[in-house]
């Protein structure tokens, strides 16, 4: 494999990992607070639609991003209402919201744009601009550093940088702030938080809202950064890969970044090559696609280090003494 191909693959790894990273951190914060969320996929989808639609109508990508975040937060709050307020089954609510957004985006897209459930292609200011780092062109021909700096680090949309900055930010929030301490506590033992005089419902809604914001950014990047417009089912299982990455990382932010980079790499490689020859064995592309899920099952099964979810996860809080 020549260096140009290598750089290309790494570059696309970074771009493909970005929505995964947003969604993965979103799920991580929600689940750390004890609210399971299998609706990451569809919050991304809804946000992707909102971003593309509003960016197209307004001609400004950032208005689109704001709309995406708003739409995604709204969906999060529906999930929160069902899971936290009405103490419904969090997984069933997640499934319901998955369908809700999958259907409603197409219905509205068809109604607004009449292009078979897609938005028109975005261009100009309605698309996310690239950020070119300084001296990228000058350094282009320097061996090793040049291709890495010019081909990988420079050039992606601003949300890519935001996504990777969210990793230390999430870590800091969870492990160095009062809010983080309470958030983790509410996912482990809500009774401890409640008897300490802190609102369980408030904390969980806050976590769910943050989850919505991050999913909104993931979706916005998908339709305005990675591609130019919304198409039906464009998330294509990314929300579930993010969920897998979260479990793979055992609900920890830095490890989550590692997991999404790995899964992004798998996707980039699968996109670029049809069959990969590893030590004389042809690995079919489908195996690359399935690998994130298989790895997650292996982790879940505890064959390689057990993944233990937050202890109060998935259960609504009911007061009892």
């Amino acid at each position, binding site marked *: 494999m020549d260096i140009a191909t290598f750089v290309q693959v790494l570059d696309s790894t970074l771009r493909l990992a970005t929505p995964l990273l947003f969604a993965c951190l979103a799920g991580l914060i929600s689940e750390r607070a004890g609210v399971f969320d*299998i609706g990451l996929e569809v919050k991304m989808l809804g946000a992707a639609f909102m971003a593309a639609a509003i960016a197209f109508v307004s001609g400004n990508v950032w208005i689109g991003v704001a709309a995406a975040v708003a739409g995604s937060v709204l969906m999060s709050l*529906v999930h929160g*209402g*069902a*899971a936290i307020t*009405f*103490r*419904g*089954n*969090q*997984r*069933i*609510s997640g*499934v*319901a*919201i*998955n*369908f*809700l957004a*999958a*259907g*409603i985006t*197409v*219905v*509205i897209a*068809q*109604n607004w744009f*009449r292009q078979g*459930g897609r938005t028109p292609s975005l261009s100009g200011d309605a698309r996310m601009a690239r950020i070119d780092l300084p001296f990228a062109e000058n350094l282009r021909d320097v061996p090793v550093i040049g291709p890495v700096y010019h081909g990988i680090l420079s050039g992606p949309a601003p949300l890519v940088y935001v996504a990777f900055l969210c990793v230390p930010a999430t870590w800091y929030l969870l492990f160095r702030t009062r809010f983080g301490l309470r958030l983790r506590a509410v996912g482990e033992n809500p009774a401890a938080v409640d008897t300490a005089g802190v609102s369980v419902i408030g904390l969980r809604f806050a976590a769910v809202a943050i989850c919505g914001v991050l999913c909104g950014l993931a979706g916005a990047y998908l339709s305005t950064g990675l591609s130019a417009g919304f198409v039906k089912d464009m998330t294509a*299982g990314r929300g*579930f890969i993010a*969920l*897998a990455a979260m*479990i793979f990382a055992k609900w920890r932010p830095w490890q989550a970044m590692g997991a999404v980079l790995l899964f992004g790499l798998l996707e980039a490689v699968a996109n670029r090559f049809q069959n990969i020859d590893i030590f004389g064995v042809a690995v*079919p592309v*489908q*195996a690359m*696609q*399935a690998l994130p*899920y*298989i790895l*997650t*099952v292996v982790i*879940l*099964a*505890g*064959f390689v280090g057990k993944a233990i*979810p937050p202890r109060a996860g998935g259960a609504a809080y009911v007061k009892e003494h």
Partner: protein
Amino acid sequence: MSGNGRIPNWADVTLVPLVSVLLAFILSGILIWAIGESPWAAVKLMVEGAFGSSYGWGYTLYYATNFMFTGLAVAVAFQARLFNIGGEGQALLGGLGVALVCLYIPWPHWSLALLAACAGAAGFGALWALIPGYLQARRGSHIVITTIMFNFIAASLLGYVLVNVLRPQGSQDPSSPRFPAEVALPKLHEMLALVGIPFSRVPPVNISLLIAVGMCFAVWFLLWRTRLGYQIRAFGESEPAAEYAGISPARITIYVMLISGALAGLMAVNSVMGEQQRLVLNAVEGAGFIGIAVALMGRNHPFGVFLAAILFGFLYQGGAELALWTSIPRELIVVIQALVILFTGALDNMVRIPIARLFALRGAR
């Protein structure tokens, strides 16, 4: 303490789901109105499209057949408090089972092929559910997550098999060759013709409908008339009590997942063998997920599943008609389905508590 359980049984099984569905319909109606169509006209179109002719009935029942299988699959698992959202993947694998049986064995008559295809579909579906079941029972991996993962793994596996193994030479289409004509299942119009009832020849509804109805009865019998069913329900209601009674949680989990996966797999007999007559990539078309809505709406009871499956069959057929004649896309049905899951599943308390209050008021008077 919130008044749960104060609802009479009849209201719990009829009123609560009906109110939930009504709420879902009202919200969908608002959505239709919001996109500039008339909800009333839409309902009329749907009802006429689904029930106005034997053509419409045929499609409604064809879809309902799929949903009975996947709905039963989810319902059986729910009885043991296991949430199997892997129906989609299990049905995909069931389709593979059907295809292998139909393609590689020369069958003299459809009836023999049907028996073997049922075995193949159920076997492959059960196998695909066995792994998450085993992992939950023995390794404590949560079944919701593993079955989601297995849906994706199944899709990849099927993609590989179709592209690299089953695809006929020279074909660009990732699908298997057509099945031989001998294994074509008798359609409903042929069966009804035997007793002199005319029925549209177009819709794919076939003898699998009878198998699905039979399965509704079989699952009811299993749950309420057999020892295994008793153990499944006891385990679902209270795990400590089941342990006390000497019921092995691990064994029941595995049995239930095998049964659930087999039921989901059987769906492929209707869709792959009854309709498509070959194996294609998206043979299941989301029916695995609709099974969740069907089971929730049917209160995890086979008779409820039967009725809910027909309701969803109506929605699917009616929705297709709607998409044909208006600017409302088919995805509207997905929205309705989502709302039904939301109200009957996750927001159950929102519907139940006011109803309980009403009954409390009436009781107080």
